[in-house]
């Protein structure tokens, strides 16, 4: 048994080990609360820090790892085997990726119980090799359930994956909450994707998943993807028939300038769709509140109930901030909410619709593509 050290004075019962004997395959995971876990290294043997978060999705690791919302975060996958079907070659259709959510791995690191060498007809490389090539570290041999429970109780905290045992206390003090990760993942210059010419949707890129771009273009729209810090004037200069505020990483309260620009845009009466971080910005712009949650939603198996017709849908969630019914200002209608904890999962207001969940899924169920249809209808009719 390998005894693990806690940086504080309390002994920890977290003990992890790996199958492999070779010392150079060892890796350590250090957490802000003093937990230290020894495991096996895979992927790149570099040291990397970030907020530690988890997902309970049982597959879809290529999509998760390339999701820009995970920028600045170390991802823990709760399902014990990860990598089983390898990594496919990326397929793009006129600039939009079909099977990845962005051009490369965005998560800072990956924590799993077991990393496997996958095999599948369309596998191009293994998960470990892909991470190595992308310079992203991974650690395996970890009791991910124990770790998840810890994160669940503590809320988000800092973590470091290191190839060497060392005193990580200083590094763990880094305030990731204060870093603007949106800036790191947003495009620097506008990018245009030709669609069917049905109209033009300006996408404000807060860290957009290609799944969203794909859904919009599939409905016949040309897309202009603009940097997150584009102002209202710039956005309106494209004469958009609709505006989309995307998902993205980090704390919505750091984006007060974007909220101001969004408020200005709302005056133009152009249909707006907000997704995830996008919903949070819309809520703030409408004068509502967004709070940090006790237990974030980090799964692809969660229900939302539509308040208008009582229908329930299984959806993909990845958020640690949210609004509750009482956080919404007057005139803003709850569209969806979670039957489990009452979190507002979607709102409607004039010609603005938003979802806190990910209607594009990837990974997750394809049950809520109708959100994009509703957006398209708004564009066509000028209202919801």
């Amino acid at each position, binding site marked *: *048994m390998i005894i693990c050290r806690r940086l504080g004075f309390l002994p920890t019962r977290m003990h992890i080990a790996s199958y492999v004997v070779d010392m150079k395959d060892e890796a350590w995971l250090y957490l802000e609360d003093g937990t230290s876990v020894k495991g096996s290294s895979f992927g790149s043997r570099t040291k990397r820090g970030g907020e530690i978060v988890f997902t309970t999705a049982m597959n879809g690791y290529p999509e998760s790892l390339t999701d820009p919302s995970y920028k600045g975060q170390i991802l823990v996958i709760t399902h014990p*085997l990860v990598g089983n079907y390898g990594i496919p070659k990326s397929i793009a259709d006129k600039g939009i990726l079909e099977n990845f959510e962005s051009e490369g791995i965005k998560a800072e690191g990956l924590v799993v119980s*077991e990393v496997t*060498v996958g095999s599948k007809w369309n596998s191009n490389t293994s998960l470990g090799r892909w991470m190595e090539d992308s310079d992203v570290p991974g650690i395996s041999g970890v009791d991910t359930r124990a770790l*998840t429970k810890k994160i669940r109780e503590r809320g988000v905290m800092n973590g470091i994956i290191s190839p060497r045992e060392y005193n990580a206390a200083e590094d763990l003090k880094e305030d990731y909450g204060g870093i603007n990760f949106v800036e790191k993942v947003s495009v620097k210059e506008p990018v245009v994707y030709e669609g069917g010419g049905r109209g033009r949707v300006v996408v404000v890129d807060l860290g957009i998943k290609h799944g969203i771009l794909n859904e919009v273009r599939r409905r016949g729209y040309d897309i202009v993807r603009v940097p997150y810090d584009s102002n209202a004037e710039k956005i309106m200069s494209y004469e958009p028939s609709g505006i989309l505020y995307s998902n993205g990483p980090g704390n919505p309260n750091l984006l007060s300038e974007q909220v101001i620009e969004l408020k200005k845009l709302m005056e133009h009466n152009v249909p707006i769709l907000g997704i995830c971080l996008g919903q949070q910005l819309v809520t703030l712009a409408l004068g509502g509140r967004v709070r940090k949650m006790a237990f974030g939603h980090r799964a692809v198996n969660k229900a939302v109930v539509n308040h208008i017709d009582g229908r329930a849908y299984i959806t993909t969630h990845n958020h640690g901030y949210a609004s509750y019914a009482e956080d919404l200002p007057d005139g803003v209608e709850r569209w969806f909410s979670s039957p489990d904890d009452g979190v507002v999962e979607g709102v409607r207001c004039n010609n603005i619709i938003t979802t806190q969940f990910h209607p594009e899924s990837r*990974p997750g*169920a394809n049950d809520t593509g109708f959100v994009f249809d509703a957006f398209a209808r708004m564009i066509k009719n000028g209202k919801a």
Partner: protein
Amino acid sequence: MERPRKVLLVGSGAIKIAEAAEFDYSGSQALKALREEGIETVLVNPNVATVQTGYEMADKIYMLPVSADSVEKVVERERPDAIMIGFGGQSALNVGVDLSSNGSLERCGVRLLGTPIRGIEKALSREKFKEEMERIGIDTPPSMVANSKEEAISHAAELDYPIILRVSFNLGGRGSIIANSPEELEAGLDKAFAQSRTGEILMEKHLKGWKEIEYEVVRDSYGNCVVTACIENLDPMGVHTGESVAVTPAQTLDNHEYQLMRSTAIRVAEAIELVGECNVQFALDPKSYKFYVIETNPRMSRSSALASKATGYPLAYVSAKLALGYKIYDVKNTVSKATTACFEPSLDYITIKMPRWDLDKFEGVNESLGTEMKSIGEVMGIGRSFEEAMQKAARMLEIGEPGIVGGYIYNSEMSLEAAEEALKKRRPYWFLYAAKAFKEGGTVEHLNKITGVAPFFLEKIKDLVSFYERIDKNGMDRKDEETARKLGFSGKQLGRKVQAPFVKQMDTLAGEWPAKANYLYMTQNASEDDLTGEEAKNGLLVLGAGCFRIGTSVEFDWSAISLVRSAGKTYDVTLANCNPETVSTDWDVVDRLYFEELNSESIINICMKSGIRKVALFAAGQTGNNIAMELESSGVEIFGSGARKIESAENRESFSRLCERLEIKQPEWANAGSAIEAKRFADSYGFPILVRPSFVLSGSAMKIAWNIDELTNYIEKAARISGKHPVVVSRYIDDAIEADLDCAADSNSIIGVAMEHVEEAGVHSGDATLLYPAENLPKEKMKEAALRLVGEMGIRGPFNIQFVIDRNEPLVIELNMRASRSMPFASKSTGINLIKYAFDGIEGRYGWSGFNEPKGRAHSVKSAQFSWSQLRGAYPSLGPEMRSTGEVASFGKNANDALLKSWLSVAPNRLPRSKILIYGSSDTAALKRAAEKLRGFDLCTLEGASVDNLHSISLDEAVHMLKGGKIDLVVTNGNMMEKDYAIRRTAADINLPMILNGRLADRVLGAFSEKKLTYLELSEYLAGYE
């Protein structure tokens, strides 16, 4: 929707291959869901061994055949306002369809809850299903329907081989046949047509080597859908899903294909207007994203029970609520207790289901796995690595293998070619041959080619072999030992004591939310326990019986549940079991459930982890008794009769000596450690001789030797099975009555029920027809013997004694110090619960002395259910080795009333309308008596095995008439395989009733003239029928 006041639930009847205890589990959950709502429940199910046929579950119980006819009678009598047909397997669904189409439901104003009939019919008729799928743009495998042989042959040319033949309304894939050539097609067509209820068969292109994937869909009446599980079969298409090793959640699917199939599954559910639960099966090309929908079952199924246990999502309970009109999100997630049922479980562990076969009990059976189900039971191994789950499951099967590697096959002399041949022929337990093949140098590529198992899984097995070979050669250092633990090696397998595993909860949410889940497993791939090792105050661990096999089935689950209920008032009860089909593995019925191995190593670990000192073994059947000694010697207290007492009864020699000392009569016997000793015995007493090993259940290796060669052969086999325990030979008493005495004792006094076998001694008691009350037994002498044994042995708890009656003298054959197979029958026949008395007898003293025989007023008969038709090639016959797979019982105003309904409750029995073929081996006296009792039937007999005074036909004629549907019932006796194999086998293949014993024939045929059968509720019979 208006909530019904009274609901009739149709059960599934006897356990047969492909319809097993999963329906006791789902029916029980549904009854629970209804009772919670204050709805009165009426249950029709003749399966006496089930948990659901007890008043703890249902308000009214009708132990009648699961047929439209008898259910209709109950409907008329009870006038329920609704009926549920989705919880009793295909049998119940068929009854519902029949009652709907003949207008009975409408006439009686009974509403069908759940999926509507038009939806069910779309799912059940393959043609309608295909049409519907085409209409909504979902691909199904290229196929054509044939209504005649000629049509089938011409379709075959178009579809091209290999072709799979399927029958509508099928069960366990019965009648599904793969034809690789025109010759094979022609051979399969007769059987397929004979078994088709609709007279049509479906011919499909066979998707050889494609992956088989199954989704479980839940849908409410408002159209809300969740997909609660995705099960991936390791075996490819072509191996029945019930025969497949299956992993949950799916391991090799990427998000794209997982979601495509998931969305398709939901569209299928919408198409059949599902309300409740269905499974949807897919075939997925292993080399592209192409897939086909194969079928859907619009009801609870084996896979839905498995999915419930694998995920913790109680599908049957939720389905029942949805059938009452609830929305999914208005039903609570009863595991997490914090969230709703509207979610899709996430698993942070892996489960592997493995089937168990008992094919070696059946002469002539085809041992290759295919599209028909032959397995008898299943287990589910849970771990946090694939290897761990696999190795645990392999041990749970209790087939003597210590895991995937290092066992009997692994260490045998088998060559690579032989192992690969076994894989090609699809012998049961392919994973053992795969490991052997890797050990002998096989490659993943080649094994993938011959088995169709995905390389991902084969690589895992190969790695396991490499690791084992290395430690076997070089020994283990500490690091290796840790690796070995994580790979699921047990201490026994490694030959050393290993660190105990960690306890984890199965909470449906992978830890995302706090959950109070009491559903637990153990894993070595962890660093902490979910439950801190708080001492269970006054803890009692109850063992379930594990994997079902011939001789161990749902009756032991009834015992386990009965014990849990009795003990729950005094103890903090933990239950351990590993069988996903059962009620006892429903986390809702106990304080704490460990889904775990039942060997001593695992049980000791559970005790240690949860601070339990007392273990009750007796509900676990022989599995429990076999580990009593090891548990006791490691300091665990056995609840009830201790290990030494168990040993004294199990050890045939010591038990026989005890009987001698107590002057209790028994057949002449001798210890037979060797063939020479056995021969000496034969010289004194002559043949036939009964050969019996110790510590075995259901007559494994118990044989009747008719000559010296058989004797020598059996002694050797018995010695191998019995291990270090003695083998005993005894005089076989020909044509004698056999009896069972089922009892509970407090070490001094007894409560017990005597039952008489219809069949003579020599037919295994598990296959025999049991009569209550007994008609011809010297009961006082039997009770006297029982009291003497209890007094001497100090038995506390349940036990069973088997007697053979020789000239009105009861001779003791054996005593089983545990719950017995017949206890649910004995209990329900008398309106008591023997297990409750067993518990009371262990905890204190009875309020009487001597033998308390409850006064039952009802007549009841238990009949055995066989699965001959599923066991292709097997020769149907009765003998000292048990072969039945289930049982039923019915009650009556007299013995004939009960007997006939009981016999009719067994599939495929039905009253003959036309010709009966009746013939037998040497002794046809009973058959003759039977024949004479029949009036108004056309009888014929077989040349060379004839019954006097009947018209004789030749073997060929008989087979021809069978195939042409000209014979309605086959009545015979004995075993004359070389003579009449073709008759019995043909009858089995076309699903024809057979009576295989003279005495039974005499009774059943005599009962055919019973004018008025009664259709009353159980308590009415128990109160005394006037």
